């Protein structure tokens, strides 16, 4: 169960797991928001399954992050009692569900990334992370396929659906680079063997996304990466405007009824 060689390594791994756990938690919550609003009941169930897969990935990642951190924080404390600047998720996963095309664009770009990430993390030196990754990669294979089919259906659909899908890709695209940018914590985790350098995942992501866009008749947006103040973003705790509303909804029951159980 031990990872690496010392407290510094554990701290880096804890920070790394927090980034992965927050990505999954927030991506899952955004997906859960769409449930009951899908075009058909069948799609509601599909989106709920995906949201629950992501939540199921977030839970052991946050639990493990809390263990390695050693400050007594469990998954609930980390999910429900941190404030906005303490979340380390990338900005892509928190983008709002403006319309169904926006949901699918975010879902496609993230699941293509997460699928490659967890495929690589199955060889992590952290046993818990390797275990989560081995299970997650099968789930993400399906998520990616689901997102790809919808991207093609909308992009190659009606004039209206194609325009919406293109607009949604434009909105999400500036947040792609952040997923592939290592901060010091990610670099330290990669160096210890617990994590991977996300930059190495980019070629596989590029070819997967390009193949979907080509089949959908869509073009890769020609937009520069969004740079936050001083080049900072979600990994530094600087989030987009809608993130506060997401946290308010996600956390309010736990905060209003501390320790409640059923």
């Amino acid at each position, binding site marked *: 169960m031990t990872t690496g060689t010392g407290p510094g390594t554990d701290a880096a791994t804890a920070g790394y797991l927090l980034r992965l756990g927050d990505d999954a938690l927030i991506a899952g919550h955004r997906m859960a928001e769409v449930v009951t609003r899908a075009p058909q009941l069948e799609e509601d169930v*599909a989106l709920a*399954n995906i949201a629950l897969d992501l939540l199921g990935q977030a839970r052991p990642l946050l639990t493990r992050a809390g263990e390695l951190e050693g400050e007594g924080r469990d998954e609930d404390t980390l999910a429900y009692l941190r404030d906005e600047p303490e979340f380390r998720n990338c900005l892509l996963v928190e983008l709002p569900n403006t319309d169904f095309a926006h949901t699918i664009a975010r879902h496609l770009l993230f699941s293509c990334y997460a699928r490659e990430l967890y495929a690589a993390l199955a060889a992590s030196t952290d046993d818990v992370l390797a275990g989560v990754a081995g299970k997650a990669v099968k789930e993400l294979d399906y998520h990616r396929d689901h997102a790809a089919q919808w991207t093609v259906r909308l992009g190659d659909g009606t004039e209206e659906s194609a325009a919406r899908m293109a607009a949604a890709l434009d909105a999400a695209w500036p947040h792609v680079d952040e997923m592939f940018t290592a901060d010091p914590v990610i670099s330290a985790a990669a160096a210890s063997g617990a994590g991977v350098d996300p930059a190495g995942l980019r070629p596989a992501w590029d070819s997967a996304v390009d193949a979907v866009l080509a089949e959908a008749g869509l073009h890769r947006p020609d937009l520069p990466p969004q740079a936050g103040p001083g080049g900072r973003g979600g990994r530094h705790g600087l989030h987009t405007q809608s993130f506060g509303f997401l946290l308010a909804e996600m956390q309010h029951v736990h905060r209003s009824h501390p320790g409640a159980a059923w």
Partner: protein
Amino acid sequence: MSGEWPLWEVFVRARRGLSHTHVGSLHAADAGHALHNARDLYTRRQEGVSVWVVPAAAITASAPEDKASFFDPADDKVYRHPTFYEVPEGVDHL
């Protein structure tokens, strides 16, 4: 908008050696979508190892008013039933 997606019939094989069994129907925009929805609706609790989807419009069904001519004549043909010999042990799914 809803209601425009056609209806599909779903068949699931519970495990190797059994045949696909009709489990229900669903709405989907195309065949790939129908397969995804079938997976999400009918195999969430490990119900199967294989799924078929068929456009409901492709199924030709017998009409209820034909019931008498279709099925009643079999009533008195007891010799069609394989009941005159013993089923060997270990043959579970005959």
